[in-house]
């Protein structure tokens, strides 16, 4: 385990995201402990469900893993590299290239079409040509079954379509970690199942680790690993 903490390790080691004894306390008064002494390690192919009662620190753990937040103690390793020393700008760059986020709300930009929304992270990364980006966006939308929505505005989509468009956007730069925060919170059962089946497939490719926060036990059943948090601590993990 500790060997993977060395930056000299190949980035394509089995561990894509590892947290080690992380604690996050919201400064008070009174200080609130969001996450306390949590350690876990996820590899490509893992599909982990983070469950627990509300306020147990599920989302906070997700934001810490996804470099949106910094732990007060402990370390987050991304593809084997410790991340605490990175500047905000470097962390933004990692979010762009290595991490994909899906939230409870789709947060698609209303001024852009679905295709353009999916292309946003690619355009920011700037590694592909315009035509290659359009093609990749098309493939992602195809894969998520929303190809017919490509030229629609977010306002014209149903809840399920929006959330799938948001997933397509999260996958735009082919991230090693896909983090989803209650992605089915606003969806009906049928759409929720589609989303979780999609996540299962994405993990099964072996290309990435998928972590989903959910409080729906039916959805957690899709997952290969289940992490249960209570009061910011891991109470059980498979």
């Amino acid at each position: 385990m500790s060997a993977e903490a060395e930056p000299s390790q190949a980035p394509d080691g089995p561990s894509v995201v590892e947290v080690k004894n992380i604690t996050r306390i919201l400064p008070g008064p009174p200080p609130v402990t969001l996450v306390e002494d949590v350690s876990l390690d996820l590899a490509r192919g893992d599909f982990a469900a983070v469950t627990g009662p509300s306020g147990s620190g599920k989302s906070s753990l997700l934001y810490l893993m996804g470099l949106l937040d910094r732990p007060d103690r402990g370390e987050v390793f991304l593809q084997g590299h410790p991340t605490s020393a990175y500047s905000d700008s470097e962390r933004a760059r990692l979010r762009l290239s290595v991490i994909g986020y899906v939230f409870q709300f789709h947060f698609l930009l209303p001024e852009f079409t679905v295709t353009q929304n999916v292309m946003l992270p690619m355009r920011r990364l700037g590694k592909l040509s315009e035509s290659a980006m359009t093609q990749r966006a098309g493939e992602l939308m195809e894969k998520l079954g929303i190809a017919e929505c490509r030229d629609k505005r977010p306002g014209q989509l149903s809840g399920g379509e929006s959330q799938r468009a948001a997933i397509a956007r999260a996958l735009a730069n082919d991230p090693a970690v896909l983090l989803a925060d209650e992605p089915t919170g606003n969806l009906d059962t049928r759409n929720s199942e589609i989303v979780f089946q999609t996540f299962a497939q994405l993990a099964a490719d072996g290309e990435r680790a998928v972590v989903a926060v959910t409080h729906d036990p039916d959805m957690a059943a899709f997952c290969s690993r289940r992490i249960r948090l209570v009061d910011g601590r891991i109470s059980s993990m498979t």
Partner: protein
Amino acid sequence: MHLLFDIALRHLAGRRRQTLVSLLGVALGVGFFIAIAAMMQGFQTYFVAKVIDVSPHIEMRDEYRKPPPQPVESQYQNGLVHILGLKPKSEPRGIKNARAKIAALSELSGVAVAPALSGQVILRYGSKDVSATAIGIDPKKEKSVSNLERDIYLGEIEDLYATANAIILGGGLAEKLGADRGATLTVLSPVGVVLKMKVVGLFTTGIVAMDNFQAYALLKKVQVLEDRPNVVNRIRLRLADVNQADVLARRIETRYGYWTQSWKEANANVLGIFVIQNAIMYSTTGAILVVAAFGIFNVISTVVLEKTRDIAILKSLGFNARDIQATFLLEGFVVGLAGTLVGWALGYGLTELLATVEFEIEGFVRSQGFILDYSPAHYLIAGATGLSAATFAAYLPARKAARMDPLAIIRGAS
């Protein structure tokens, strides 16, 4: 299209009316600046050109700037000297030894020199008495120091030689008298000499102070009128380089002691008004642009507030603070740029409109309508100011957006 620019444009498109209003604010500021500057600068350059063109660049008078120092004052330079009942020595008026001075000044390169005797007279024609300044000149030399020859629109400067007791009047003066060419005036001087003089020509310079109050005659005639034979009380100089006037006037005054004025000093009151005019112009248009900047601040602030979620998602997707700041700064810049371009067109249009307005003005100068100056510098100044005001107005909301914590927003939303 660059991604951030794309986002910026879409944000503005989403607030079309507000954007348009702020854009018009900038455009009005820029446009008015250009039109007002064209008007003011046009008038000012015209005036300066006229002054330089029409009158001598330097004039030496038979006066002193300060009374001559008393011996006791030079003896106790740092002492407290108070002289009571001082009677300055009365000197015969006129520049002493003018001939030698003219000869010496003529030696300078790029300088033309002419003598003159100027005195107050009353012109009487029919039932009208009009006071005027009679200037006695040497027409041959005068040609080289002023543009009188060119400004005479009726008659010739040489006609002063052709007719005995000839006089050339300013157009406005002739109008006041009701006299035309060929009229014979009675000219009275303060010393009591009366001459019958014939109007042989009329001139107009465009400068009211000259056209309405000056008359030219031969130097000899004015010397007779004023009963000051062989006296010259003005030495008039014209320079190849007008900007040397101040320096040369100082030098001449130091050398000869007589009060020597450059054209800048002679017109200091008007040139001073120009400075104030320009200050008013810059502050007025500056105020318009400040108002416009508030408009832009308002739009961008609204967009930032409205787009907090979008800002959060962009940040979580991996856009950094600088990207976000640049996006909103670009929005201000775009409004500023578009406003500037519209303002340029507006300014040009307004200037063209002003050019068609016709009226008679008679202030410092006479003109039919506005004198306009289409200077690219005005467009550059207005554009640069509009653009930087717009960008600066966007800076505060942009910085606020850049500093937003995406986590707080996402937590708040879910």
